[in-house]
């Protein structure tokens, strides 16, 4: 019953928000925040509960059911948390824009749909919520108009391709196993032939591959992330794209079953490795493409693709360690990227919508909170020790090394290298270097932006120092998949080849840090300089003369650019042109001459005549 009420609140809240907006915009804003926070609290209260198959509706005589277990709780908690934070962030960011009633309604609707997805225990509910999520996302991406419109179309077309594949798969399962309930399908599918399993997994693989932007299917993502309103970019990158990861987990480990990966059949094991390699490619190429971007959001968007690769890599391996790493990285990455999008949003908000990395810079003193957020966010993305992603990346590397896949591990390492280069550019060009004169009078980010940034920054450190908090939940998830339990404690993880103890690292860093601090204290006194006090190759640079942020990495660009074409995007673009040309041709069937039209009728009759006579009249 609780789940039903929770979803009703989520969906009902979205619509009520719209109508409240007609009364008063203040009331609407508070209500939206209230709804999203209520949902978070409600989901949090479900912690540790495990209720299977709670029916709530009849659809064509099929019972639709909801359930909560550790997997759905984990994702639901993340969805509602990020949802609430981005609604709070929207308060100031969206102030003064038009159609706000619609905007808040859609934000809450997307959230509600995602909660529906993770709580759905049957495939029709899953699909229905999935589609509601798709179309409301489409509307939100298109919200800003102009460039956002093609981005929206690109998103929805790819999303529809994925949904149709899933639709086909779901009904095929239904027809074969006469049930829609996931746990029953999982029992039934054991007896299915491996060919059928692969067929189903390919169909769902396409769907979730598109949603989580695995490499050749990623092309919708950069535009969509860039063109959405920034708080929604955060939701999009933080959770919506990761619904693909949830889908992978659900279909690979719950529906198809973990045994699928263990009863290794030559044909099937390849499927898993194909996915691993796609994951690896997804790590490497996008992180370098990210480096080339000059739009802050686009840079982050490409990281959204790249980091997704780590998750897929971890999940596709199908070992306790890898799976834990993949799932943990989903959460950790989401925290980082939401934080980064919010920092960009804050900068964008104060600098009049500018995101161009060539023209920003030096905002560190003007917007310290946004800077701190960005710094922690990029540290997280890179995976520096004491940040959350360090743990998840450690788990993934460990898996790759344990399973002796040096090439995949190498790819993952290169990815990290690319990440360092590109996120440094991000940090530097936004916050470091010289402050352009026009931004002299920038004020701090508003409180409604600072709150989410501070919360997320603390989460990065908290989960970095005490990774046991999320890992405990993840441990119950992987044991529910039928994997061995990991030896997890609050400050780390013990595995057969080495132990991770974040408290030790924390202490070590604390000690090293205080030693350095002491050295500075006893050493020569430092003196503060202004931001304009710059030197280039020993020569003094007059203030405002040079902006170091322009053409960052220019020499590197020249070297790598030829190799970093987005071939997939080119290919899809070509496909679209071919299709357009083709449809132009098909259109000519209706040439406008009624004489032809009558001929069509006669030809059709003749053809039918011929077919029906069984060719005898020949």
């Amino acid at each position, binding site marked *: 019953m609780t789940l039903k009420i929770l979803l009703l609140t989520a969906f009902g809240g979205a619509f009520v928000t719209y109508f409240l907006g007609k009364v008063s915009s203040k009331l609407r804003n508070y209500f939206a925040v209230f709804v999203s926070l209520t949902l978070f609290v409600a989901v949090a209260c479900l912690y540790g509960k495990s209720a299977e198959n709670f029916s709530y509706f009849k659809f064509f005589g099929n019972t639709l059911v909801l359930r909560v277990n550790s997997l759905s709780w984990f994702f639901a908690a993340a969805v509602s948390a990020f949802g609430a934070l981005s609604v709070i962030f929207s308060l100031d960011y969206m102030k003064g824009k038009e159609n706000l009633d619609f905007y808040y309604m859609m934000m809450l609707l997307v959230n509600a749909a995602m909660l529906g997805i993770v709580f759905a225990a049957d495939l029709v509910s899953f699909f229905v919520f999935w*589609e509601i999520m*798709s179309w409301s996302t489409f*509307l939100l991406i298109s919200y800003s108009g102009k460039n956002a419109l093609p981005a929206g179309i690109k998103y929805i077309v790819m999303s529809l391709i994925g949904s*149709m594949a899933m639709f*086909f798969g779901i009904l095929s399962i239904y027809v074969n196993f006469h049930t829609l309930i996931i746990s029953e399908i999982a029992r039934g599918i054991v007896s299915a032939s491996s060919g059928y399993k692969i067929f189903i997994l390919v169909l769902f693989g396409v769907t979730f591959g598109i949603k989580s932007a695995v490499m050749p299917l990623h092309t919708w993502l950069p535009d969509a992330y860039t063109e959405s309103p920034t708080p929604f970019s955060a939701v999009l990158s933080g959770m919506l794209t990761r619904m693909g990861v949830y889908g992978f987990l659900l279909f690979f480990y719950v529906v198809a079953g973990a045994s699928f990966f263990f009863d290794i059949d030559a044909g099937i094991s390849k499927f898993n490795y194909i996915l691993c390699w796609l994951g690896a490619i997804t790590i490497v190429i996008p992180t370098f493409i990210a480096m080339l971007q000059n739009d802050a959001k686009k840079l982050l968007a490409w990281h959204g693709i790249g980091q997704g690769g780590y998750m897929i890599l971890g999940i596709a391996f199908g070992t306790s360690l890898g799976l834990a790493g993949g799932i943990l990285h989903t959460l950790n990455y989401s925290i980082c990227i939401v934080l980064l999008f919010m920092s960009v949003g804050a900068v964008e908000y104060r600098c009049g919508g500018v995101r161009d990395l060539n023209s920003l810079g030096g905002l560190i003193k003007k917007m310290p909170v946004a800077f701190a957020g960005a710094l922690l966010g990029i540290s997280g993305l890179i995976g520096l020790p004491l940040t959350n992603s360090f743990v998840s990346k450690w788990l993934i590397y460990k898996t790759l090394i344990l399973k002796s896949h040096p090439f995949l591990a190498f790819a993952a390492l290169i990815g990290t290298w690319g990440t360092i280069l590109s996120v440094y550019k991000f940090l530097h060009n936004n916050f470091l270097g010289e402050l352009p004169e026009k931004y002299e009078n920038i004020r701090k980010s508003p409180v409604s932006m600072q709150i989410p940034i501070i919360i997320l920054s603390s989460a990065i450190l908290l989960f970095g120092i005490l990774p046991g908090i999320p890992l405990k939940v993840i441990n119950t998830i992987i044991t529910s998949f039928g994997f061995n339990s990991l030896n997890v404690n609050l400050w780390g993880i013990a595995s057969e080849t080495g132990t991770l103890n974040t408290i030790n690292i924390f202490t070590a860093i604390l000690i090293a840090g205080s030693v350095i601090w002491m050295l500075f204290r006893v050493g020569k006194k430092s003196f503060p300089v202004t931001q304009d006090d710059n030197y280039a190759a020993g020569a003094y640079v007059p203030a405002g003369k040079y902006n170091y942020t322009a053409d960052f990495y220019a020499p590197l660009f020249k070297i790598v650019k030829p190799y970093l074409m987005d071939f997939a995007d080119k290919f899809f673009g070509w496909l679209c042109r071919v299709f*357009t040309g083709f*449809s132009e041709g098909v259109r000519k069937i209706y040439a406008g001459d*009624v004489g032809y039209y009558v001929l069509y009728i006669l030809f059709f009759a003749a053809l039918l005549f011929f*077919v029906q006579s069984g060719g005898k009249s020949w």
Partner: protein
Amino acid sequence: MVVSPVLLIAVPLLLAFIAPLCGKAAKYIPPAGALFNLILSVILIPTVLKSPMIVSIGGFPPPFCINLFVGPLGIFFAALISLAGFLISIYALSYIRERAVGKYHTLYLLLLTGATGVVLTGDIFNLFVFYEILCISSYALTAHNAHWHRHGTEAAVKYLIQGSVGSAFILLAIGMLYGFFGTLNMADLAKHIARAHSSVLFIPLTFFIAGFGVEAAIFPLNAWLPDAHSVSPAPISAIFSGIAIEIGVYAIMRVVFTLFGAPLSVMSVLLIVGLLTLLVGEICAFRQNNIKRMSAYSSIGQIGLIVFAFGLATKSGITAGLFQITSHALSKILLFLTIGYMIYSIRMKNYPDKYVTEIEINSLNGLGKKMPLTSLGFAIAAFSLIGFPPFIGFSSKLLIVKAALLKGGIYAVLMGIALIATVIEGAYFLKVVQGIYFRKGEVEGIKENNVFILVPFFILAALIIFAGIYPGILTKILNSSSGELLNRIGYIGRLPG
């Protein structure tokens, strides 16, 4: 004894000829007639579900007289026709104001009469007569704009020419059957055909499909449709798209299933034709700049999907097809009506002295702010046509895919191909939705304030959402309808005497 279903045909027919006598009040006649039919057919549904009603006309026993066969299928269609007819005529109250207003109402009622007659009759020649009433009033209604510009006339003449070729085929087929068996009663004919071992029976069957196929707009017999649907005024486009072409599909299916017992070769041809119609329709719609032509081509696509579902020739397939007919009727009528109102408002602002019925997609930009309810209606209709939940289009697509997969094998593969059409559909409809809501346009001074126009939007949208969430309300009647189509023996057995 409940009321006689004959009234379903007689009342609108009578009203059609009373309408011209009523002068100014003529516009209230069609809603009244359609409402009467709607109420009557809903009252009849429980009775008909128990057992079909046979009404002999003229006092002779069948097969010597014309009889009505009011089964679940017939009453379902009659209810759908009168529902659509009622909502569209309310809309037309204020929409149709110019020129041949009186004639419009007569023709509109005749169209409804013809459509209702086709689905209720049990006599093949009678079916042809009603079919012709439907077609001829359609030709005339297409040319409703003829006073204003020649496109209306041109489209009507093209439609007339193609429609006549089709009718000629049908008449030939009926003549042949009458020649072979000496009867026109469908149950009687079915009995004879079932017993006959003639190798020439495929000729009338072929002619029937080619003839009814013109009205049903299957590929490649549908070239009249984009012209006719786009130049006619919105209520006409809506009734054409929502009802008229579905009647063509009904006629094909009645003949193929009931008279000829659905031979596999015909069904496979219909399946392929349906698939081709779907793909060609959607692909053509993709490249249209004119909003009404785009919707017209989308109708072709949807009809293709309906024919595809029927072509499966299983109970679930036919049920799915009928569900898709309902869903298409509701959604497409809403779509055409909303488009019509948008065009009307733009025209009233920009060219008050010109009669514009079609418009470029770009002209709708930015209307979302000025006409929020109409735009919402359009978006709901478009989403439903694409098949997004929780709208009715999703339920019907679900049933169709399920039916195809139940049949398995090659049918599943063809279904997979058919799903590509959904993606194309999504691409072109959502572009328009984006334009309406998120593009800037010159829409100053446009308002929506006509209650008579907005009420049908509201009812249709409510039905689309309600039936999308509770599709179960339709399953009972649709299941018995598909049962009726498949149960040929039962149909023959109903022949009295």
